[in-house]
């Protein structure tokens, strides 16, 4: 049984200033304005907010800072930011813009000593390492550039290396399960969370409260990150100003779901099951 106080972390994927959501980190849909979503999550009791610019890494661009500044103004829970971070100066820039943590994936794969340097300068608790794991023929591998690039390294070995180099946390995504709503990869989450002594956040596959409870109860994770499962609920229940550009067909045709404020309900559900959460 996992006795930790579990953090529930909404993940917001941002592209060109819009909140998007993909399936298996591909096939993107526009959901709306990220400010509305993060404000809602903050008020609903999110323990932390995770921002990522999914395409920043691929194109080497970085427009996230201004969103960070605007969002962090009224957000009094930790804000983690990532996407295309390759230099110490970029980390410093994000922190000065109002981020509390900065997450790194590709840059660590390209040069693991980047993590050592970053954690020495900014402190371990500021540096989150993203592991985007893919399962191919029953074996797990790392990926970078949002799952496009498979690296023949075992995620468990990699997690230990990141810990050694001073990473403060691991944000673990299952590429296979991400965006499917079919549940988490329990085996992967267990292996990684049991092999390191830094917090591990599980992400990818949340589609029900039971899914979330299951990954908490069967692993040693410190938190769960949820994207689409929360976002779709908000899209269908709250009247936000619709984004004017891009493919909004999905949004316009989204069926109304029954529940409102899933985050709060999730915490009540977990609490009843004996999971420690902040309320």
């Amino acid at each position, binding site marked *: 049984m996992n006795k*930790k*106080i579990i*953090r529930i972390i909404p993940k917001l994927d941002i592209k060109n200033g819009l909140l998007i959501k993909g399936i298996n980190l591909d096939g993107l849909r526009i959901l709306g304005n990220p400010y509305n979503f993060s404000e809602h999550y*903050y008020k609903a*009791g999110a*323990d932390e907010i995770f921002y990522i610019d999914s395409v920043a890494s691929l194109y080497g661009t970085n427009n996230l800072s201004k969103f960070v*500044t605007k969002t*962090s*103004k*009224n957000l*009094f*829970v*930790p804000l983690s930011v990532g996407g295309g971070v390759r230099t110490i100066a970029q980390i410093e820039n994000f*922190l*000065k*813009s*109002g*981020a*509390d943590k900065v997450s790194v994936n590709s840059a660590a794969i390209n040069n693991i000593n980047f993590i050592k340097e970053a954690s*020495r*300068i*900014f*402190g*371990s*608790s*500021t540096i989150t390492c993203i592991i985007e794991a893919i399962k191919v023929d029953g074996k797990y591998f790392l990926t970078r550039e949002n799952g496009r690039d498979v690296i023949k390294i075992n995620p468990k070995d990699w997690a230990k290396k990141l810990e050694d180099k001073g990473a*403060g*946390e691991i944000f673990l995504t299952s590429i296979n399960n991400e965006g499917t709503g079919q549940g988490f990869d329990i085996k992967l989450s267990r292996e990684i969370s049991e092999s390191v*002594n*830094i*917090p591990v956040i599980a992400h990818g596959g949340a589609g029900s409260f039971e899914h979330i409870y299951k990954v908490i109860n069967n692993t040693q994770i*410190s*938190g769960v990150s949820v994207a689409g499962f929360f976002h779709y609920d908000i899209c269908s229940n709250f009247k936000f100003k619709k984004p004017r550009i891009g493919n909004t067909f999905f949004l316009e045709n989204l069926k109304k779901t029954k529940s409102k404020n899933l985050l709060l309900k999730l915490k009540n559900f977990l609490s009843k099951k004996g999971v420690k959460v*902040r309320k």
Partner: protein
Amino acid sequence: MKQKKIGIINLKINNIHSIYEACTAAGFKVNLIDDKQTKYNYDIVILPGIGSYKLAMKKIIEINFKDKILDFLEKKNNLLVGICLGMQLFFTKSNEFGDTKGLNLIKGKVDRINRNLIVPHTGWNKIINLKKNRLLENKLNKKMFYFTHSYFCAPENEKAIVGRTNYFNLNFCSVVKQDNIFGMQFHPEKSGETGIQLLKNFKRY
């Protein structure tokens, strides 16, 4: 009631946005203190912090913080507040990267959390054994605050410990108070509305 003035020490090594915004939201007049200020004309001075003890101490010595803060503390209505690393810097020494001397405003040392535990201690936790204190109304002991740290403070004088926190089998000092010096290991500026409420309590000091 006159609006109280808070000055935030800017060591330029970390994110001070959050604490600035949170103090503003709590209703204070907030200023960032730059290195050139020779006198701290505030009701409350906050030493925030995330980052390395050694680097922070180097900056603190560079800006001649200790002399200025001792002068500030002479006035008993003034309050010095340390957050996270800021609290740790009040102590005699830390064993981060070998022994590093601190400000020695509060006797005691700063130790690393046992490596067998999940370190850093990142996440929400409660304050227990909370002593009655104007700054921490008792209803706050039911709430959780956000922590993120790998080191913890061990004051020599038990009386300085206002609140403690349990993390696995570790029971550490999470709130310290000695005269008009107040320190907390958690981040009120990242602890949601509970943290804002705590900051509001500072108005009554």
